[in-house]
């Protein structure tokens, strides 16, 4: 129960979505008050077009890309679908043998599901690249696959950083291997932007997904950055906007607000990322102190190479004997908002495919909890979690004893 004295909830779920920054909100509201279709030729249309192009230049500058490489979309899922399907179709058109799609086993469903859809509907063969115990993609497996089938591969898609366990992938190594075989690389950088340095040109990737609402921007807008020489077919057909790759009237307020939030978050990163990492380390230490049995999943930031191998704002634990949904409920009622980190189907918690791919047994994967920090996070949020956690874990374990399959009657 919330009492008048109770502080606001501790929001530890920034990887799900972030609050909009003040500047982004102001930009959105200002633009939303104007009429204008960016495809119209009259003055209102020209003003809208100008706002879009300025935003495009800003997004490109923030991410080390050229403006012509920025395709605005309705967000991460659309960008991933456009990349996977569009590159697959584009590559296959020039060479019908290129039917293989290589994706890491820990990709977001917005990459995995279009890939498997292509397998079911367009003759694609999906190769799931295995990961190690920390969730890092197996480069030897990628190399072997490319060596054996390089001339049949349409594309490789490996995320910049994982949304559940925060593992930063060796994207440059992936690019180097793939390009040796002339294979383009897509990366989903939705979680990475604002937390680690993301430079589209320097990374060498051919296409990259970003979204606004994970970095202080509005919901429902994002971009696919795509090199101009990358063959890519449209998924949405219509008025021919965004170089014919993504038709649809441009959402000017959302695009403007996205550009503002992105510029802000990229500028803040050099200072904010170390601060979030320090806060995250405090959170990890606090959780471990409360429950020594809790297992940190993903790279350990206190190890030699761990700090760079993990997103600074991510912490992810499994709590043996407890179920994620029990932990979630108990934390929520204690005013702490977190996530199990895995996708829900009709609200039914499924063991995370990411954890399973990392070799975590299903029974342990059930007890997963992700904490993700952001621009508005404070030490008080972490204190609140650590204070609530002892009773939460104890109760969730008691519930786990009685509710596990085959559990005590």
């Amino acid at each position: 129960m919330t009492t008048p004295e109770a502080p606001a909830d501790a929001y530890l779920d920034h990887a799900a979505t972030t609050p909009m920054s003040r500047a982004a909100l102001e930009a959105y509201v200002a633009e939303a008050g104007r009429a204008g279709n960016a495809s119209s030729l009259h003055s209102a249309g020209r003003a809208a077009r100008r706002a879009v192009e300025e935003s495009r230049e800003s997004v490109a500058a923030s991410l080390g890309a050229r403006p012509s490489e920025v395709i605005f979309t309705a967000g991460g899922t659309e960008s991933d679908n456009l990349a996977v399907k569009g590159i697959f179709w584009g590559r296959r058109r020039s060479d019908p043998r290129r039917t293989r799609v290589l994706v890491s086993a820990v990709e977001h469903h917005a990459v995995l599901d279009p890939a498997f859809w292509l397998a079911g509907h367009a003759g694609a063969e999906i190769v799931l690249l295995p990961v190690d115990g920390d969730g890092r993609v197996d480069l030897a497996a990628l190399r072997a696959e490319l060596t054996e089938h390089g001339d049949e591969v349409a594309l490789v898609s490996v995320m910049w950083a994982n949304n559940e366990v925060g593992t930063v992938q060796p994207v440059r190594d992936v690019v180097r291997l793939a390009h040796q075989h002339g294979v383009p690389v897509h990366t989903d950088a939705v979680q990475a932007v604002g937390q680690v340095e993301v430079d589209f040109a320097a990374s060498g990737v051919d296409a990259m997904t970003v979204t606004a609402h994970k970095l202080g921007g509005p919901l429902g807008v994002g971009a696919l950055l795509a090199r101009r020489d990358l063959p890519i077919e449209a998924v949405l057909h219509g008025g021919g906007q965004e170089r014919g790759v993504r038709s649809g009237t441009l959402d000017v307020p959302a695009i403007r607000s996205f550009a503002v939030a992105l510029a802000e978050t990229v500028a803040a990163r050099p200072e904010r990322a170390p601060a979030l990492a320090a806060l995250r380390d405090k959170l990890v230490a606090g959780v471990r102190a409360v429950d020594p049995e809790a297992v940190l999943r993903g790279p350990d930031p206190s190890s030699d190479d761990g700090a760079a191998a993990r997103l600074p704002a991510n912490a992810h634990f499994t709590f043996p004997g407890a179920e994620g949904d029990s932990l979630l409920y108990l934390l929520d009622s204690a005013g702490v908002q977190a996530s199990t980190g895995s996708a829900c189907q009709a609200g039914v918690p499924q063991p995370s495919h990411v954890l399973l791919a990392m070799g975590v047994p299903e029974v342990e994967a059930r007890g997963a909890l992700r904490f993700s920090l952001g621009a508005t996070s404070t030490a008080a949020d972490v204190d609140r979690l650590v204070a609530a956690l002892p009773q939460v874990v104890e109760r969730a374990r008691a519930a786990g004893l009685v509710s596990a399959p085959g559990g005590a009657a």
Partner: protein
Amino acid sequence: MRVLAAMSGGVDSAVAAALAVEAGHDVVGVHMALSRNRDQFRTGSRGCCSIEDAGDARRAADVLGIPYYVWDLSERFEETVVADFLAEYEAGRTPNPCVRCNEHIKFEALLDKATALGFDAVATGHYAQVVTREGADGTVVRELHRSPNDEKDQSYVLAVMGPDRLARAMFPLGGFASKAEVRAEAERRGLSVSAKPDSYDICFVADGDTRGFLRDRLGSRPGEVVDTDGAVVGEHDGAYAFTVGQRKGLGLGRPAADGRARYVVDVQVSTNTVVVGPAELLSVDRIETHKAVWLAAPQEHAEGAWLDDVEVQVRAHGAPVPARVRAATAADGTPAIDVELTGRPLRGVAAGQSLVVYRGTRVLGQGTVARAWRG
């Protein structure tokens, strides 16, 4: 109190949750996911287990302004309710899966998890009343009673829970005399499920075809249908799919010599034989049960002492009949209830059915039918 409202997505449980909220309780809605593969469950508006139902439950929780969670109890459901359903049919008995679900899922898996998480009670949309009164020694006695709504009364399927579980159960619809009133309450609160049709069938039998479900899961086992003299009168795909008292679907080519209707009078799984005979062979007035659970206080059912002036009911929507009963111990060592019918006999009482003992509207106890005969 902290109350967990089990929300199926139907109108009854939504109104039950609303009433719990309005009674001032701290309520959290939980939808039980009973199958990971939703396709194998019935879909559409009649179910309690489809994706639409989970969405309806979520929407109702939103309207009530309460937190909402989905708990995955699919493995427990499969290994208790579905497994019991199959094993009982395979053994030639006739299970009631709704009774087993209340016993193992709603008032065990769900209730125990809720208790562990700090909830004081689980509220459901069942039609039954809990009446509290002061006992002889000053303690509070909780009694389970029939709903005033005869048509919807669900005390029969709830009787399986013992007193300590009843103490943590809450049936906010207990006082409602009609479903129309419940629908009106739903509409008054803007709950969109107010006009949703009732569910009737077994939720995990997708198309209502129980025999087909059993054949899929247990396999085809062809055998003979014989009459009471042992003469073969037909064939079947598996004796397990037949129930004592069944008349339809026997697939007998020829009518009986005397032209009278024939019923299943025995299911012999050891020889995979179904025995058919005339209706009078189905009449019984003695019933032995096992795995009995008493809701009445121990001093009310001392072993061996007959309780007169009670009624027993053997089907969810069957009529109760006058009887006398006594507590006993079954051959398998579990508590038993022995039954002698004192009015008219019952027809077609099958092993495996749940027998509930009532005095007036009050549930005294429940047992599982072991055998029934003409005394």
